[in-house]
């Protein structure tokens, strides 16, 4: 048992060294490891190894501490496994499209890209007003763009649903998440990132479980090892 625990600990140490190597690689080359097939495979392999070691840790560890600690232990490690599953799903299935829309009243249902990729919506989507504010030194302070949705091909003066898109507040449309990435200087258009990620909720669930578990484990049983209180006469309880 102790040997297995030791193997897992040193296995995790190996993964920490790998992550350090990746960080140095990213720092020197400026390349994202996910941008190459090899890097992506290495990341997934590391995640799977970490998941396996976590499963081993959960299955073979004997937790002798109090119930909150024990509960935290299981929630935390299950959270890690869920998080890893979420990241693997994201790595394998996430699709991203960078989209440029002009605020000239036109709207589209299907969006085709140069690399052959495309995605479709049930409704027509167009870009409304774009707003930008700047600081006195010329740096951007606020971006905002309106997305307009029509049930059919847009006609002049037609009332449609509007959604305001700002940085930090993406909009969810038919399973796609849309982000405002940039706007044109004269507010004539905006660059959007459209993302379809089935693993998103799995990751968030994993994060919540992981954090709950960590707080449960680390903030329970703090009194353990406290020096015993003394009575008036100096005798220990």
């Amino acid at each position: 048992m102790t040997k297995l625990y030791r193997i897992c600990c040193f296995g995790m140490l190996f993964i920490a060294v790998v992550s350090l190597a990746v960080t140095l690689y990213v720092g020197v080359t400026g390349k994202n490891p996910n941008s190459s097939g090899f890097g992506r495979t290495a990341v997934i392999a590391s995640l799977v190894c970490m998941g396996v070691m976590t499963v081993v840790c959960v299955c073979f560890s004997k937790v002798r501490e109090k119930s909150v600690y024990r509960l935290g232990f299981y929630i935390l490690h299950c959270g890690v496994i869920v998080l890893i599953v979420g990241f693997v799903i994201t790595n394998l299935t996430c699709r991203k499209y960078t989209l440029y829309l002009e605020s000239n009243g036109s709207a589209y249902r299907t969006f085709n890209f140069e690399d052959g990729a495309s995605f479709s919506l049930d409704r027509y989507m167009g870009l409304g007003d774009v707003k930008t504010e700047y600081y006195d030194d010329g740096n951007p302070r606020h971006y905002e763009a309106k997305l307009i949705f029509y049930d059919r091909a847009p006609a002049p003066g037609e009332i449609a649903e509007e959604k305001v898109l700002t940085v930090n507040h993406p909009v969810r449309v038919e399973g796609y998440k849309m982000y405002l990435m940039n706007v044109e200087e004269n507010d004539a258009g905006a660059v959007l990132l459209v993302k379809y990620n089935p693993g998103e909720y799995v990751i968030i669930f994993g994060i919540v479980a992981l954090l709950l578990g960590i707080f449960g484990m680390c903030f329970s049983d703090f009194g353990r090892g406290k020096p015993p209180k003394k009575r008036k006469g100096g005798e220990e309880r």
Partner: protein
Amino acid sequence: MRVVIVRLALLVTALCYYIAFAFSFRTKRARQKKFVRLQNVFYTVGLLINFGMVVYNFVINLVTNGVGYAPFVSMFQVLIFLALCFFPVYLFIEKVCACVGYSRYFLLASAVVMTGPCFMDIADVWTFPPALQSVFFVPHIVCYMLSYSLAAIAFMITVTALLKGENHDRVCVLCLRTLFPFMSLGMFLGAIWADQVWGDFWAWDVKEGWSLCTWLTYMLALHFYRREKLKRYARVLVIAGFVLVVITFLFSNVFKVDSVHSY
């Protein structure tokens, strides 16, 4: 005039922390009470000025930017806040965890951190790009500051223990058990924020990479502390963890690397 007063306040604060640290070394029993009182007086004065500086930074942000930004808009403001973070951490370790006699580490850490802003450009302010205007900004930084302050304490205690051949594992584990939740919260809030703003939970940014290494190191240290035979490795990991904290905290800002975290 304002700059001179601020500079003076910073110097007095750092000096108070250093003097309180000097009084924390109590050799003769007869002078012990007096030394404790003096230590507390200097620490309290330092804390009050430090707190005043944080409030001043908040007011300055309000006046300059017209928005009540939290006082974290430059490395100068972040360091002043970090110096103050050692106080709640000290209270927690001493009062809640009943680890008495470690005040000197907190005093020294506060003093060293407070020395930085004394030599920094007071007027330097990061403009807040739209990406930073998020509800996650303040909790992300506060969590990291608390965890960094605990990392510094754990590091100092471990180094002292190694040099003197003493065993301070209990307080070191308590520091780790307090810093790890805050570090995790800071990291995962950052991940959720990154998903909101850039569409990726994890983008392998340089600072993200270093923070992951730091997180993994402390996670391993906590695991290693659970087994008697692995404790010596745990101590090495605590020291390595703090080195990684320093790199994470300062690397992208000092060397101005291409990172979303260097503003």
